[in-house]
């Protein structure tokens, strides 16, 4: 067990592991989050919140466990991913806790469900489960290439996950939930990881066929039908999701993921053209007869004009979100001092960003968006560094899915694109989302560890031996 000496000394032979950098950044992320939590308490009740100790210890424990596990099981991993995820999760918790105290939301909840229970403790529990999943990924998944074996299984699982919500009743206009008793999950969040796995495995095998064995037609390379089959199936599926589950966000996410991965695998620009064409056809077709989607588009065009009249509530929500951002201005009102709770329903989920916008202001929003951007870019950096095509594809798939999700949600809330029902990774309230995104970060960290590990395996070290002993 000479691990300790290895990590504290950065030798000239090995690439630096950067674990201490990560530790400091994690500590910083925890500090910022605890500070935000204290700030909310001081602003809203004039005293330090009573749950401060619990929240602080909880977050420190989670981040600490995450860090220790990375230190032990992925010591060459990218040092930024864990702190960034911790920061977002921590700030998200503070914002959710802030919205828990809103008398308006409490009254609304009591009117709707005859009860109110705060979401922040639940979110803290989900975060713990998320970190547990993160730990499980790092401990159990010794090498990401193992996932290759499950290419077709993951396709089946993804299909099941995506189709299942069709058989469950719709919640707030979108069928994106699987509900069994009091337990419910949003399978779309997990499906994005599983689909990325499937694509990586499939494209790694078929990429040459897709890139080369094609006919030229009007300047575009058209691939052979048998290679195209699974892709067309996925395109059809994303349209089906849109139609039957009225879930604009998920279908957009899968489509983006699908185009990006095809492009990376085949290196052919024609795939982008192809993908965009297909998505445009799909979107326009669906938009012409799906009222839910039409509502969203109307609300996007001019939310204030249909503020009072719209039946779906989308106009009101988007208007309120826009006014939240406006009210925040450059520096924000300060945590706990805004009125973002006027958005009402989903204020702490899909619309959590408008609370950030109002209370942290433009400055805070830019910081948060940059943190998201950094996660995506570190993911793609990992992909660039990865030495195996499967790892490359998986890393770029996961990070671009993450990036597209951020864009789709934030763009929707800010009125840049029509609103879709998806969660802001890490910040928004919701178990599925937090769990899935921690797993996603776990996989990225695993790939980056493999990628950054010194190329020629060093002479047998106690470290390597140990990992071999644990390998199942």
């Amino acid at each position: 067990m000479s691990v300790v000496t290895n990590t504290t000394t950065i030798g000239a032979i090995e690439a630096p592991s950067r674990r201490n950098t990560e530790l400091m950044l994690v500590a910083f992320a925890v500090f910022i989050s605890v500070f935000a939590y204290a700030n909310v308490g001081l602003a809203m009740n004039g005293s330090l919140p009573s749950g401060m100790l619990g929240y602080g210890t909880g977050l420190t424990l989670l981040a600490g466990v995450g860090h220790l596990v990375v230190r032990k099981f992925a010591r060459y991993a990218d040092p930024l991913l864990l702190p960034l995820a911790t920061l977002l999760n921590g700030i998200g918790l503070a914002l959710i806790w802030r919205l828990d105290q809103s008398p308006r939301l409490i009254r609304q909840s009591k009117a709707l469900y005859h009860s109110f229970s705060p979401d922040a403790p639940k979110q803290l529990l989900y975060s713990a489960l998320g970190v547990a999943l993160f730990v499980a990924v790092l401990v159990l998944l010794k090498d990401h290439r193992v996932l290759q074996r499950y290419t077709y299984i993951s396709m089946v699982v993804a299909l099941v996950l995506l189709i299942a919500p069709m058989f469950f009743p719709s919640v707030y206009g979108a069928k994106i939930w699987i509900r069994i008793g009091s337990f419910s999950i949003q399978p779309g969040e997990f499906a994005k990881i599983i689909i990325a796995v499937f694509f990586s495995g499939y494209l790694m095998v078929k990429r040459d066929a897709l890139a080369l064995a094609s006919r030229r037609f009007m300047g575009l390379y058209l691939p052979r039908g048998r290679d195209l089959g699974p892709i067309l199936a996925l395109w059809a599926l994303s349209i089906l999701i849109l139609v039957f589950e009225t879930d604009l966000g998920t279908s957009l996410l899968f489509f983006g993921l699908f185009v990006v991965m095809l492009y990376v695998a085949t290196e052919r620009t024609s795939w982008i053209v192809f993908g965009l064409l297909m998505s445009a056809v799909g979107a326009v077709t669906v938009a012409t007869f799906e009222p839910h989607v039409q509502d969203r588009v109307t609300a996007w065009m001019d939310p204030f004009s249909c503020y009072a009249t719209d039946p779906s509530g989308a106009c009101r929500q988007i208007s309120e979100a826009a006014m939240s951002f406006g009210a925040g201005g450059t520096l924000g009102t300060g945590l706990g001092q805004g009125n973002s709770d006027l958005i009402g329903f989903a204020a702490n989920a899909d619309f959590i960003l408008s609370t950030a916008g109002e209370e942290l202001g433009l400055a805070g929003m830019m910081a948060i968006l940059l943190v998201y951007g950094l996660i995506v870019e570190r993911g793609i950096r990992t992909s660039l560094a990865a030495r195996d095509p499967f790892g490359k594809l998986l890393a770029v798939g996961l990070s671009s899915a993450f990036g597209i999700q951020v864009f789709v949600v934030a763009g929707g809330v800010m009125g840049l694109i029509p609103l879709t029902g998806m969660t802001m990774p890490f910040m928004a309230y919701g178990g599925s989302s937090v769990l899935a995104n921690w797993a996603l970060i776990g996989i990225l960290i695993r790939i980056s560890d493999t990628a950054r590990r010194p190329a020629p395996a060093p002479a047998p070290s106690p470290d390597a031996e140990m990992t071999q002993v644990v390998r199942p």
Partner: protein
Amino acid sequence: MNKPLRRIAIFCGVLILALIVRTNWLQYGQADELNAKKQNLRIGIERYAHERGNIIVDGNPITGSVVSDSTYYKYKRTWKDGPMWAPVTGYSSQVFDATQLEKLNDSILTGNDDRLFFDRTLSMFTGTKKQGGNVVTTLNADAQKAAFKGLGDKKGAAVALDPKTGAILALASTPSYDPSSFAGNTDTDSKNYKKLLDDKSQPMLNRALRQTYPPGSAFKVVTAAAALENGLYSNIDSPTDSPLPWKLPLSTQDLPNEGPLPCKNASLRLALQVSCNTVFGKIGADLGEDKMRAEAEKFGFNSEQFTPTRAYASVFSKNMDGAQTALSSIGQFNTAATPLQMAMVASAVANDGTLMKPYMVDRLTAPNLDTVAKTEPQKMSEPMSKEHAQMIQQMMETVVEKGTGTMAKIPGATVGGKTGTAQNGINNSGNPYAWFISYAKTAQGSPVAVAVVVEDSNATREHISGGGLAAPIAKAMMQAVINSEK
């Protein structure tokens, strides 16, 4: 695979960049527009998020704030003697916006005004709660009470001015409403508000500023000033060239007087004392519309007054023929005046011919009572020379001494006044409006000028007269001001 990877990296960067640009646009570029949206509840929430500052009369607040049980609005506005002060304060309702001083000085009252910036910054460091500034009015609580009590259950309005400065001392309107009755956002508040809107007697109408009435004979003061200013007559005691009966120009109709009055070639003093229609009608016809209108406009007719609450423009018509000008000159035809306007007429006379701009906010103060803005008295116009003003004073004093306005006599003070009983409705079908305008003078000069109009009361038609109904109210108001001066 690295080349497409780099491109994807750029693509994702562009996505994030688009979001950053958008958030800049929303929070920096569009922020003001979004904050001003009528759907934005924050405006109301902010208005009641802290204890509002107060409107102050004679050093005492006439408003207050209580913690409201609403989840939107932390505080609720309250008023002391709401109905009495409503024409001054206006209302400030969580749901139905605000009016008058509550609205016009909203930024001071909420404490958001830029002029309070220093104060806000200071309290940020000292940790004191945010507070609103105060609006200190020029009103005189006793005069206001006298006006409101005098009007009682009658419909009408009364205004008292300080002739030397133009400061408004009283501003009453009846029937009135209690702004407290719909300050919150409960169902009862909405019901009360709706009931007030539907009420036929229009309790929310500010009759002192926003209602014009034919001024009737009270307008003869303006006509007298026009006659003297234009040199038509120069002595108030020499006989005028006034036949009786007098035919309206280009008409077959005689202009009647109210009864068999000694109006034939009566002097100006006598004509005002007994209120001769023929004498003043003929003055109007002789001077012509242009000169009459010019004089009326010097008194403030045909333009809106801002006190700072906006008062409607009083009317002296354009493009009238001789008969119409004659009728207008005795305050009939299209001539219409707000009570404020008629108080301005009386105050210009009392102030030796100089009309001061009426105002009712003396100063705005920060929460710590430091003055952030003060209204300086402003001269508005000079409708007549000092000499002519003093002549009209003599005439008006005769009216009170032994004419139609004897009810307004105050022991120990010189009172000048003019009554008016204005016809109302087609062919005089409605109850006439009873007017009284007056001023009081003590050894120190004139502290008060008053206009009172009673639109409707329980008195029978024959008993409605300016002298009988309106003069006692004016007297009570003037007395209140004189007593508080001592």
